[in-house]
């Protein structure tokens, strides 16, 4: 077995006595998509926010390529090439697409000033690849449609050569056409050897896009299964009842 790209071991975090994540371990290999499934409040978003640096675990450890790392904030996560597409998209609505794409990592001129023209040019390039219909480069992202906003958030994660990509409900706000676009993108990123954590509560999505699925319930890990080994009903049983399917190695 190769060394996993990411290994989260025995992670715990609690908020005011509630064990949001309770001794959970998950891992992710290069070129693999691992689904994180569970009800609202199962702890999947919280778990992943520990990896992206938004929260800090009370205990447990994170290994990247087998080496133990400390992730104290989103900057640390980014320095390990962990990029996140948040469910809320985390866009500053008053800024344009380029400003959002480069937020926190602006391109600067030799004088140290923000180089808006260069950033817009780069944004145009990546958008031509991700969403060729995208044209609103000078307007604030509040003026964009849901799908366009999503493509800005995706572009931000993809542009900086992520090795590990976290996608929190990437298709929740999208129409069928855009969902298809995200599915194609995931295949493309997989082929590039990027590891993806996909948070979803759409079982159909997970069965189609993921290689493995980790199911959580009430902050605990129910099990990790190969999606080829289970049916939709098996996954549903894990999500709703916290029951491991029989005869499957979890």
């Amino acid at each position, binding site marked *: 077995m190769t060394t996993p790209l990411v290994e989260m071991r025995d992670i715990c975090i609690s908020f005011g006595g509630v064990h949001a994540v309770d001794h959970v371990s998950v891992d992710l290999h290069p070129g693999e998509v691992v689904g994180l499934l569970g009800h609202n409040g199962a702890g999947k978003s919280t778990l992943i926010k520990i990896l992206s640096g938004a929260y800090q675990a009370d205990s447990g450890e994170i290994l990247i390529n087998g080496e133990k790392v400390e992730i104290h904030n989103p900057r640390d996560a980014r320095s390990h090439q962990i990029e996140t597409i948040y469910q809320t998209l*985390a866009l500053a609505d008053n800024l344009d697409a380029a*400003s959002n794409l480069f937020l*926190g990592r602006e391109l600067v001129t030799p004088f140290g000033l*923000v180089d808006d*023209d260069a950033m*817009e*040019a780069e944004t145009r390039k990546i958008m031509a690849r991700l969403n060729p219909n995208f044209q609103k480069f000078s307007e*604030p992202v509040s003026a964009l449609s849901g799908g366009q906003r999503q493509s800005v958030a995706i572009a931000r994660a993809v542009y900086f050569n992520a090795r590990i990509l976290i996608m929190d409900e990437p298709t929740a706000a999208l129409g069928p056409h855009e969902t298809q676009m995200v599915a194609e993108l995931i295949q493309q990123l997989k082929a590039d050897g990027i590891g993806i954590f996909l948070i979803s509560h759409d079982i159909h999505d997970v069965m189609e896009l993921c290689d493995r699925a980790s199911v959580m319930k009430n902050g605990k890990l129910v099990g990790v299964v190969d999606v080829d080994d289970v049916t939709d009903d098996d996954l549903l049983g894990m999500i709703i009842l916290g029951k491991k399917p029989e005869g499957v190695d979890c």
Partner: protein
Amino acid sequence: MPQHDTNALPTAQKRGFFQTLEIDLRLLGMVGAFVILCIGFDFATGGRFLTPRNIFNLTIQTVSVAIMATGMVFVIVTRHIDLSVGALLATCSAIMAMTQTQFLPQVLGLGFDHALTPWITIVIGVIAGTAIGAFHGFLVGYLTIPAFIVTLGGLLVWRNVAWYMTSGKTIGPLDTTFQKFGGINGTLGASGSWIVGALATAAALFGLLNARRNKLKHGFAVKPLWAEYVLGGIAASAILGFVATLNAYDVPTRKLQRLFDARGEVMPEGFTQSYGIPISVLVLIAIAIGMTILARRTRLGRYIFATGGNPDAAELSGINTRLLTVKIFALMGALCAISAIVASARLTNHSNDIGTLDELRVIAAAVIGGTALAGGVGTIHGAILGALIMQSLQSGMAMVGVDAPLQNIVVGAVLVLAVLIDIIYRKRTGGA
């Protein structure tokens, strides 16, 4: 012109004209309101409002509030507020007054009007303002006390620190060189003003050219050439017109006579000398340019607006929003200190009530200038224009002879009305 505009109405064509120039319609509305205000007062006062003398006075009266308003833009953009700016100005003014009249001449033995006195004083004042501002920012950012409370407390504390330091006495007269930052006591004269005007015009034209070149380099669409010429023409005539107006204000003959008498010379017949651009206005212009660059072209500025638009997104993008809060309030403090230099120098002494109610004027200027209290939106030039509108309204009414209570009532009503118009405008245009 896009296809769907072929049968556009005259109004739509007019919009197209301004859009081609890439001038913000909102800014245009404010300039329009300001012009109407000035012309209205000019009629009401029988032509006394738009004289070089009154424009000169209006300009130097606006500087202090305008300087602070530029900092208030950043504070409000990040969804905070600073109620302590007037009190902080008083404390900085008191510190600087004590430094230049007591500490440096007597304790350090430099004597009065020593060449170093004004500069040491200014450095000490700005350090004090920055430190106090940073402390406010620390309380807000790191200890998460709401800015409203921190600065409401600050208002009481710093107003009375100033009082305590000076025992409530008026401290003065201030250093002669220091007084040059106040306005009428420090101007460039005619030729100096023309030189500054020419340099500013050249800089504005170069800026336009440079922006166009950059856009072309990346292959972006640029404005038609005629639009660039129109913009350049507007900028040049505004700058040079302003210089000409200030140069048209002559030093009163009797004052000149006294100057010549003091030097033991005889004033030539028909000798005139114009004031030109006050140094305090140059300070404001420098700050306006600096703050605009900060807002638009630096990472700090980008993070300020991003945090105002969506604090969570800023945090998740790796921006240290706590430290950012400290920096914003520190900057506000530094600007209060600079305003304190201008305000006390203009009065030629530090008085106990200096800067009283300035917090309200500063916030009003920023808000009238289009800074949204919901955060994320605001411009530096808007805030300065807001300060100018407030000051024109106030002094215009005073010239017309409106009673003081009525003046305040009108200013208060205008503030509320301006925000209402802004809300309606944003709804119509669907802007953020």
